[in-house]
């Protein structure tokens, strides 16, 4: 069974699978928009997990989904800074991202975290000139963790990994919901539905909470 999930779920879902909380499946992770494009183009996937509703709607409109989408977790935006770089010193508030001496990396607005970040920055009236627009939240995290960028906007679940410091974005709208869907092209729909059910199961929810995800 093939499950494609948003990049931000990598650590939590891999841990849950390792603990036996999820049925056996081949897990792959990428930007939600990339997964959606592949699913719509007919890639052989059974379950798809998106990090926001815009991408979910694309799947629904393309009529590739079987059954109702299941929300099972939420995440909040966070500004991440590299402990080793200048970011930790220079960036204490969201507005600091607009400073000319701070190198910021964001995700492309097509990526859920990028879209959410653009909205949050606009609402706060902060104008950022990013050095790069990454194609998944993993790209943002990598660039900041390597010290190539001073700061970036990712999720609270990324804080504390790879020596990343930072803080949550307080804006109440800076939260996104993960949905899992079974695809029409799934080989074994019953098995795919069991996987989706397991995401809402107690064991997986514990693993998600341990990684910092919010309840659905």
């Amino acid at each position, binding site marked *: 069974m093939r499950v494609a999930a948003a990049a931000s779920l990598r650590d939590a879902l891999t841990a849950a699978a390792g603990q036996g909380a999820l049925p056996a499946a081949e897990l792959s992770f990428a930007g939600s928009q*990339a997964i959606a494009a592949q699913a719509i183009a007919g890639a052989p996937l059974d379950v798809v997990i998106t990090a926001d509703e815009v991408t979910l709607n694309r799947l629904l409109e393309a009529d590739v989904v079987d059954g109702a989408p299941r929300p099972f977790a939420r995440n909040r935006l966070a500004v991440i800074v590299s402990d080793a770089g200048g970011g930790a010193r220079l960036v204490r508030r969201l507005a600091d991202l607009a400073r000319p001496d701070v*190198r910021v*990396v964001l995700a492309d607005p097509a990526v859920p975290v990028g879209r959410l970040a653009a909205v949050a920055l606009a609402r706060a009236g902060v104008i950022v000139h*990013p*050095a*790069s627009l990454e194609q998944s939240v993993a790209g943002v995290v990598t*660039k900041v963790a390597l*010290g190539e960028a001073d700061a970036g906007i990712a999720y609270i679940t990324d804080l504390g990994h790879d020596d990343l410091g930072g803080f949550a974005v307080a804006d109440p709208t800076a939260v996104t919901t993960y949905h899992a869907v079974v695809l029409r092209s799934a080989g074994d729909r019953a098995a795919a539905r069991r996987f989706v059910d397991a995401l809402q199961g107690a064991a997986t929810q514990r693993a998600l909470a341990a990684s910092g995800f919010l309840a659905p």
Partner: protein
Amino acid sequence: MSAKRVPAAVGVLATVGAAIVVVPIIGLLAKTHWSGLVDALSGPAVADALGLSLVTSAITTFVAVAVGVPLAVVLARATVPGLRVLRALVTIPLALPPVAGGVALLLTFGRRGLVGAWLDEGLGLTVPFTTAAVVLAQLFVSLPFVVAATEAGIRALDGRHEDAAATLGARPGRVLWRVTLPMALPSIGAGAVLCWARALGELGATITFAGNLPGRTQTVPLAMFVQLDQDPDAAVALSVLLLGVSLVVLIALRDRWVPAFGRVRHRAEPTA
């Protein structure tokens, strides 16, 4: 061999070989929405990407020839030890996945990289996320084409003309500039065209090392890659654009500068 004398089996395999390249191109052109093409290509993002691609690939080719030809001369003619190792190293980018090349560049020229840390602290220069990084990424993957083609061209020369020139009193530099390189020019040209084509299409190393920002680092391949997930029609339009640009340049160069790749034509009388 005339067409009559090509064995049937060879003809069949040749057709398969041609089809492998030609059929996908036909597929691309068949699925293009020609009526919407002009609209899809007339945003500022496309103009930015195309301009960036053309400028960076031109700079890359120029630099690749400027340093690649001397390197090829050394590999072909010098007698110092370790040349075989050097040749292997220089050929590595051809086999290395482009993203791996990007990672290598990032770890070397990144702000905490081997060279980059010194550049950052000492000169305040950062390389990643700049247009210079785009050129570096392209250079890394396409320099081997210039070196390999030029070295092959120089090795194919039998040395008579160079010996004659030396006997007549020309110093090594003059022999090189007036005899060797002019005779190897077709190979240098072939290498330069391959280099330019590879640089134009470079994606993996660029996206890893230079990042993705319209106007500064988003070349046409990157724009295509990004659009594929959002607007497949736009991605197709960009593919057709790149195909068109490549065809125009390759056809314009034709046999004038680029005879069949690697085939070396000896000029009758080298200038001395």
